[in-house]
């Protein structure tokens, strides 16, 4: 039994999770990372992906997030998500819409830098779609 720590998942609209958890898997900008208690302080941006929360008691919860930040301290972890939805509630049309928008962004991109960025974003979205659609 791993030590528990405080995890909070907040989106601008509301506080989704605030409880003691054993571990959290975060889709960091530079790779997925699992956060457990006594983690070294890290601040990272997150890419669109799935956050897996394993509470100290109860069942594992999974949330889809679209970008945001994670603030990790030894005593706890705060995830500021641009938007977050539980995997069970995710609307496929919503992802499809975001992918469509990302495609348009690529088409509209004026210079190479912003095009690369948009393409990266699209790639992350399609990976995400692949990850949760079969579920």
């Amino acid at each position, binding site marked *: 039994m791993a030590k528990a720590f405080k995890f*909070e998942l*907040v*989106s*601008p*609209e*509301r*506080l989704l999770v605030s409880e003691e958890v054993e571990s959290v898997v975060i889709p*960091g*900008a*530079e790779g997925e990372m699992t956060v457990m208690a006594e983690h*070294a*302080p*890290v*601040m*990272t*941006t997150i890419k669109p992906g799935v956050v897996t929360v394993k509470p100290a008691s109860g069942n594992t919860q999974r949330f889809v997030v679209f970008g945001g*930040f994670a*603030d990790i*301290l*030894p005593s706890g972890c*705060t995830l*500021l998500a*641009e*938007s977050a939805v539980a995997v069970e509630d995710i609307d496929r049309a919503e992802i499809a819409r975001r992918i469509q928008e990302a495609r348009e962004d690529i088409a509209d991109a004026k210079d190479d830098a912003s095009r690369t960025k948009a393409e990266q974003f699209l790639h992350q979205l399609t990976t995400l779609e692949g990850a949760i659609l079969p579920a």
Partner: protein
Amino acid sequence: MPSLKDLRNRIASVKATQKITKAMQMVAAAKLRRAQEAAEAARPYSERMGAVLANITQAVGGGGDAPALMTGTGKDDVHLLVVCTAERGLCGGFNSQIARLARDHIRKLLSAGKQVKIICVGKKGYDILRRDYASLILDRVDLREVRTLSFVNADAIAKKVIGLFNDGQFDVCTLFYSNFKSVISQIPTAQQIIPAAAVEASGEAANGAAVYEYEPEPGEILSDLIPRNIAVQIFRALLENAAGEMGAKMSAMDSATRNAGDMINRLSITYNRQRQAQITKELIEIISGAEAL
């Protein structure tokens, strides 16, 4: 002197108006509760955002790699005002208070020789400012179709503002909205969002200032964080506004309902007096007719 029939009609119409204002008051009360809940639910995010921002600014230390959105352009010539008001009227002085604050601000800036640009969020502010400063209004954002405010709405406004900033269209951006203090008191507020006013390091942030590892580089995170913070600020302003509008509407409709009640009382007294007078007059006519015989 209005006839009895006129008075009766008048009373009926005031009663109908009272029913409407009463209904509007109750609708506003219900919406107020929801708006207040939404504002409260959004609070943790902006608080955490503030703490994270304080931490990271400490780390970057306002060095050369701080993004322009934070440090500003170094000039102070062109001001962009984002004026957030309600989409609908009938809420007392709510909209005009915000507009007045914005107008005072504009006048001050103009007399100081600055250039002013305006973005209006909400129809009412646009209608008011259009009268005097139509040429300064760049754009207006219409949220009439929006049922429940979501972050996407605020994000769209923020993107617009940041886009303008990156094109060098303005140097300083100020947000005007109404701070929801209580149902009866909303305080029009001006808040500078670009360049970001120095974030006060709160106690929590200070002890959290352990040596962080950053992934990617702090500067990179910061340049991602600042635009998002602007969106969060705008979102908060919109939510405060929504709650304030409903609060103002509720008290406006409450006093309208009371006024209608007073008016009905006054009209009823006049009506009864006149009816009595007419009865008396008829009696006199009958009696004097009988005496004459």
